[in-house]
Each structure stands twice: as C-alpha cells, then as structure tokens.
C-alpha cells in the first residue's frame, strides 16, 4: 500500500510535530509512507476567500506531487475536504479526479481503511475533543446534532483506544470554533468570541488539553488560550494517538 503524506502548509511551517506524529503513527501501523518533497498548500485560503480562480498553479503543483499513490493522508479535515470538493487540473483531469477520490483525513484513514482496532498509546490526561466543522459536517467523521443519524465518532473511537485518557465533550459538542480561514482576521471580533466560548465550555470540564483533527482550529484556540494565560494546552489528535508516555 503506497501512502503519500500531505502535510498542510501551516502545519509544515508552524506545527512540525503534528506532521512527525502522523508519519510515525502511519509507519507504526505498517504503511509505506512517502512524503513528496515539492508539496505546498491545498489552495483553500484562496478559494474560500473567493479567489478559487487564482489557485490553478497551486492545484497543478498538488497534482504533480500526489498523483499515482494508492492513498493520500493528511492530518487536517479542512484541507482534505477542500481537495475532495475543489481540486481541478485542466491538464491532468484524470489524475486530479483520482486524488479527490484517494485523499483521506487521518482518523478516517485509520478507522475506514486500516480498520485499526487497537493502539499502543497512553496519554494520562483530561482531554476535550473539538470537532472541526469541515471534518465533521464535510467529511462526516462523526454524527451531527442537527441530523437524525445514530451517534458515532471516528476520532473518539480512536481516542478510546488510548490508555489512561479521560475524554470529555463540551456542552455544545459540534459548535464551530470561529477560525474559518481568512474569517479569523476579516471577522476578528466574531471569530475570537466564538473561540472564547468554545474554550469556556472545555475549561468547565477542567481539561488539560483540547484536541482535534484540525490544527487550524487548534491554532486559533491556542492563540486565545495563551493570551488568557490559561493552563489548558492544545494537542493534535495524531500526537495523542502516537503518544507512549
């Protein structure tokens, strides 16, 4: 099974540990993982700002790097959803279509493709789970409070395999954190208020860590937590699943 690792740009630049944990975890689980060296970004920042027309160069670069693999895995629901919905390459339409089909967010790859039943991981802390909207409502990584489907959660299913973890849910389990891409600066006041409200619900559960599948949400929450001088930290789900404390 040839698996390509996609490490989204802001993870590459600011949260390398998330990429490292993802790579180590996949290798531990027996995957032959390649990291195409000329990768950059999924193109979402432009497209969500209304500039999808500008992302052709970025898209072509993505196709160049990721064509030909059985699976592409990324530790980000948001970037994966963007590729699934919007990756196009006029010169290589078939390759782009293959990639749209073969790209997986990390937790769905672990549960649906690798069908992981147990993990050799331990994380003895109180952890609050933050569902990213694009992972949850976009990729259906878990059930949603608005719809009538039975309860399930791929990330929680995996976290429950971790020894000594104490998982908790915030009161509003699937409310948006307010990051929203460029929304976080163009609608700064609403964005920060939404983030503060998420944090308050996790802190009410006295968590040590807030985790999730999207570093972008976590980066936004971390910025607020640090400004507030909070002891609560953020950690990507890959880092917990790869943890052997």
């Amino acid at each position, binding site marked *: 099974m040839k698996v390509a690792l996609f490490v989204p740009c802001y993870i590459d630049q600011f949260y390398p540990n998330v990429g490292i944990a993802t790579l180590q975890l996949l290798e531990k689980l027996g995957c032959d993982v390649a990291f195409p060296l000329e990768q950059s970004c999924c193109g979402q920042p432009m497209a969500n700002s209304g500039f999808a027309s500008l992302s052709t160069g970025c898209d072509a670069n993505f196709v160049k790097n990721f064509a030909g693999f059985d699976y592409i895995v990324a530790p980000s629901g948001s970037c994966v959803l963007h590729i699934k919905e919007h990756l196009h390459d006029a010169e290589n339409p078939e390759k782009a279509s293959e990639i749209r089909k073969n790209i997986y967010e990390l937790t769905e790859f672990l549960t649906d493709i690798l069908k992981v039943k147990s993990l050799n991981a331990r994380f003895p802390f109180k952890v609050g789970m933050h569902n990213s909207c694009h992972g949850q409502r976009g990729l259906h990584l878990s059930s949603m409070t*608005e719809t009538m489907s039975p309860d399930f959660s791929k990330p929680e299913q995996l976290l429950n395999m971790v020894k000594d973890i104490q998982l908790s849910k915030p009161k509003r389990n699937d409310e948006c954190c307010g990051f929203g891409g460029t929304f976080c600066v163009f609608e700064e006041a609403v964005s920060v208020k939404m983030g503060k409200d998420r944090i308050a619900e996790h802190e009410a559960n006295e968590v040590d860590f807030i985790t999730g599948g999207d570093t972008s949400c976590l980066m936004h929450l971390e910025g607020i937590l640090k400004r507030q001088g909070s002891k609560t930290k953020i950690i990507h789900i890959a880092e917990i699943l790869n943890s052997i404390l």
Partner: protein
Amino acid sequence: MTAKHAALAEKFIADEPRINWHDETLWFVREKRDKAAHGLPEWEQLREWGSQIKNHTLSNLSNYLKEFEEKAKANGIFVHWAQDGAEHNKIIHQIIQKHKIQKIVKSKSMLTEECHLNEYLQQHNIEVVDTDLGERIVQFRKEPPSHIVLPAIHLKKEDVSETFHQHLGTEKGNNDPQYLTEAARQHLRNKFVESDLAITGVNFAVAETGGFVVCTNEGNADMGAHTAAVHIACMGFEKIIPRAEHLGVFLRLLARSATGQPITTYSSHFQKPRQGQEIHIVIVDNGRSKQLGREDFRNSLKCIRCAACFNTCPVYRRSGGHSYHTAVAGPIGSILNPNLDMKANADLPFASTLCGSCSNVCPVKINIHEQLWKWRQVIIAEGYADASKKIAMTAMAFLFSKPKVYRLAGKMGRTIMQVFPFLTNNKWNVWYKQREMPEPPKESFRDWYLKNGKINKNE
C-alpha cells in the same frame, strides 16, 4: 468590498453579557428544534419531500402561478402582480387611496420589510401599525426586525420596558413580562378595532385552490383580517405550492424548524372574501426571477422563512441580526441579498465560517453553505474585492504554486518572528489583537524529514 458586517458585529459584541444572553436564547430555540425534529421518525423524509415539492414548483412556476391566479379570481379575490418593491408599494397605496383609509394594521410580513412598505406609506402620511408583538416593539424603536421569526430577539425585557414606558406610558422600571405583554395587548386591541385595512404576509399559496395560509403564534393576522373591511396579502412568488395536501408536509416542517413547536398556534386558511369584504393578493417578483435564472443559487427560493439557519448559525448568534444590514439576515439572507444588490451586500457571503450547520437544519435542504462559497467566487469575479485582499491573495497563489518560493518565504517568516517578534506582534496584526501568534519552530516538517525521515526513493 465593504466590511460592513464585521464592523457592525464588532459593535454588537462589545457588550459581552448581552451577546452571551443573545447566543444562549437562540441556542435554546435551536435545541427546541432538535427535540421536535428528533421526535418525528420521518423527519428526514419530510425534509426530502419538502425539498422535492419546492424543486418541482420552481421548475413549473409560471404554470402554478397562473393556476393560482385563476382560482383566486374565481373565489372573488383581486390579484395584483408587482415587478419590484416600488410597484408593490404603489399597488397597496392605490388600494388604500381608493377606499380612503386612514387606519391600517399589519401582521408580520418580511416581504413588506424587504419592500420598505412602512417607510413608503409614512412618506404619504399613512400610519401602519405592526401588530406582531416583537414587530411593534421594534417599530416603536424605529428599528428593523433583527430576526425573521423573532423580530425583537436582540432586545431584553428591560429594553422593552423602557420602550413601552416611552410609547405606552407603562410604569418605569417595571420589567414584568406579564405586565408588559398585557399593556401591548390592550394597546393593540384598540388598533385592531379601529382599523379599516389589514395587511398580512403569506406563508403558503395553494395553486389548486387559490387560497392561502398565514401562520402566526399570536393570532394577530386573524384579528386584523377579521375586523377590517379590506385585507391585502403580500407574497413573494416563491410562496406558491401546487396542492393543499402539500401543506401536510410544510406546516409540519415550518414550526418545528422555527421554534420547535409541532405547529404554529394559528395556521389560518383564507379562501374567499366574506360578505362585504375585499381580499387583494399582491404577488411580487423583486429580483426573484433573476435568482431563479442563476443556476447555482436558484434553490435558495425554496426557503419557507423558518429561520432555523439563523438560530443555528454561530456567527448570527454572536453578531446579531442588524449586522446583516438587510431585511432578511442570517445565512439565508446572505445568499438572497447579493442577488438584490451585489455591491451593497458583497460582505454578507463572507460573514460565515462555512461550518455547514445551516444546510443541516434547513427543512427544505437548501445547500446554504455551499452557496455562500459560490457567492464569494461570483463577488470576487465581479470585482467587488478589497484591493489589499486581492494583492494578498495573488501573492499567496504565486507562493503556493512555486514550492521553492513557498519554503523560502516560510523560513524567512519564521526567522523574522523569532528574531524580531515585534514585527508581527503589533497593533497592525489583526490576529494579534486578542490572540497570541503561534510559536515559530526552528525547522519546518520538511526540514525535519530531510534529516530524519525515510526519503522517498522516487523523489
């Protein structure tokens, strides 16, 4: 592009305890909706039917409208067609003039808000009294409604007490909801008795019968229509449904989605005028046919105005209805209003995190968040982008298409943040206003991988 929504939202958010209250109140309504929806095993089936009936209707609109007009006329109802808001207002004005009417009551109609009927009639020295309690409150305060179902949801009982003290002479500082509601009730009773003409909205117009249905919880539409000699009902042309039996789908969806009630307290069916009464229906286009012609956005016309998307929207709950500066706020407003005036409403599709909750609660399955994304593309393509945003996006697109440039920029950026943190941690950095910057690591993932990873032999 104007940043009106962001600026208005920031003003509303400044009063944090009030925002918390606003957010929690609307979330309570959202949870009531969840309970009501979960109580029906066939909920998703109903949504699917609602969506399909509306899709079918939009594809056969002209036929159903003609059928409705014929049947309504046969029932003795006068039918008028208005191309836009101005014509709608003029038609109503003419009816008022014909009957030499002074006193008018109106029950809640978002269409008349959209057409600015109150302002128009005021300019002609005609007073219209809004009879929905929430609408009367905002009318006293000379404010537009902030929510299409709960028009005064931005106000607390203390605000209402002060408003009623000024306009109805209630006791200053008496915030008892029972007392305040009773004062409004007495005040409105007189207005109903005195009125000669009642204006109502329309929730559903039935093509096969020529009748229409108005849903209220206060019974104010009935009070108005039953006491006045003339009843004018105003509807956007998308309110049409083919058959009476379809009400069995929509009435069940509407109130559950709106407030979590199984059905509105009053679902009033109007079929023909009683003896001595006149009923007029004004059917309005006002940009709807243009929207119908936009392939990506036509199904926004399926909307039944339940406001479930408002109540679930995490942005709306914190920015308030007035931040959308249009008659219909919230997520649905943000996909309807760019059609009416793209330049003035260019900010609205961006007033969303694209979380998708709106599409999930929509009882007629409008893909609201996908349309928000598509409107963004249209608005930028039409040239309503901020110049600085355009420069930033063009630069970003270049960066990401050239991996070497991206890596160099990333490294420079991180180095600058480490060596000169004041260059990013300053008042010009909007992120930094209420958030710390991420701590820049020494090396990127790629740098780490080149040293520690198993390099792909194909590279």
